[in-house]
């Protein structure tokens, strides 16, 4: 120890030189980007790879937190989306039917709940009595009829879909205007309906369009489906035929609620007649 100390003491100039020089160079290299870059370049073979490995390891360990934060951010952003706000103003557009002087109003609504595989199917739409929807209104979409409104709350409405045991709408063959009524088929296939009670005079063809008749909730001529088979059971005095529905009920997104402005008047009139009888 003593020898070591005397050795260091004898050459203290050199050791002091080393200490101060290294300090100065460290300060220099740490504070000058050019020299730092040179250093890192020359050492990138080893240190660069070590740093990359370390980074990967740390990144792997932090995955859980990253995931959590991303999920939180997703939820937050989803909350900011337009679709998560309830749109209070209903957009309505009016159709004036000049021939029949009948005015229909359409209220656009979004389907927020839907089912197709129950014996009785309903769908919920995001417009209610505040937007002018009332019980008994018809619901259509761009491809055809959907159903009718059966319950209404302030902001929502429940629609009894065509795929329901009790749903029955007036319909007709597009070409020979023969009246019948459309129902869901008994076998619970969401793509098939049945057109009943068509008069025997009709000469339906496979592939003929079936449209609404204008006697019920819907304007005349809204498509329902195409005749797909003429050989169905039942009938007797009338013709029954199978109809392939044009609406894919499992993919409904936006629907139009039909507000028949004269519907109440018509109903009241017809009700009066019943009372008189």
């Amino acid at each position, binding site marked *: 120890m003593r020898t070591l100390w005397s050795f260091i003491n004898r050459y*203290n*100039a*050199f050791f*002091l*030189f080393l*200490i*101060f*020089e290294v*300090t*100065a*160079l*460290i*300060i*220099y*290299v*740490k*504070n*000058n980007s*050019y*020299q730092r870059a*040179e250093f890192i370049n020359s050492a990138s073979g080893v240190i660069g790879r070590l740093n990359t490995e370390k980074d990967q390891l740390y990144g792997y360990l932090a995955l859980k937190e990253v995931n959590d934060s991303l999920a939180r951010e997703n939820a937050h952003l989803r909350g900011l989306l337009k679709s998560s706000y309830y749109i209070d103003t209903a957009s309505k557009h009016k159709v004036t039917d000049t021939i029949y002087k009948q005015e229909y109003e359409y209220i656009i609504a979004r389907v927020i709940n839907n089912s197709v595989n129950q014996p009785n199917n309903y769908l919920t739409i995001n417009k209610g009595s505040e937007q002018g929807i009332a019980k008994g209104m018809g619901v259509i979409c761009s491809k055809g009829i959907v159903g009718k409104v059966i319950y209404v709350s302030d902001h929502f409405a429940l629609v009894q879909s065509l795929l329901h045991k009790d749903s029955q709408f007036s319909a007709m063959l597009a070409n020979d205007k023969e009246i019948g009524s459309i129902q869901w088929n008994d076998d619970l296939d969401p793509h098939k309906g049945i057109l009943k009670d068509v008069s025997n005079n009709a000469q339906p063809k496979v592939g003929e369009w079936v449209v609404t008749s204008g006697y019920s909730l819907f304007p005349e001529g809204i498509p329902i489906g195409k005749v797909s088979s003429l050989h169905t059971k039942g009938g007797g005095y009338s013709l029954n035929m199978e109809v392939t529905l044009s609406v894919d009920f499992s993919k409904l997104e936006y629907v139009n609620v039909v507000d028949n402005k004269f519907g109440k008047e018509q109903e009241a009139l017809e009700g009066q007649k019943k009372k008189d009888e």
Partner: protein
Amino acid sequence: MSRAIIINLVRFVVLVFIQVFLLRNLALYNLPVCYPYILFLLLLPFGIPNILLFSLAFITGLSIDAFYDTPGLHAASCVILAFVRILFINITVSKEGFDNEPEPTLSVMGIRWFLAYTVTLTLVHHFFLFVIESFSLSGLQYTIGRFLASSFFTIILILISGTIFFRRKERK
């Protein structure tokens, strides 16, 4: 002793001020620059302890660096200079020959010794300064030209200052 401290303190302040406020902006044809602030380190007394010498060299370099925005560059060069100074004095001067804490000035040591002393230390200091500054072999010609021209410039300034403060009666 206290007189030596005061003289060196004043010398330090004056040299650093001249260096950073006057000579910093001075370059001949953009090539040579001069660093006569190392005169402070050259003129420190013979009897100074090594650790104090190194510390002073380090501090001097850092104060210059603070103004030149090159932290560590001048400090490193000055520490090398201090080391070479110790070697040079060990080789050429016998410590027993002095008392009264003399300083290695031109008037004390004479022109031959002082010239060799100044040239050696300046060359070492400037060489390391420019090498560390450029930090690469590219532009070596420019670096060496800068080093030689600057060394010449600095040595001339140091000799001029030595003759200005020359005191004949101190001559041995």
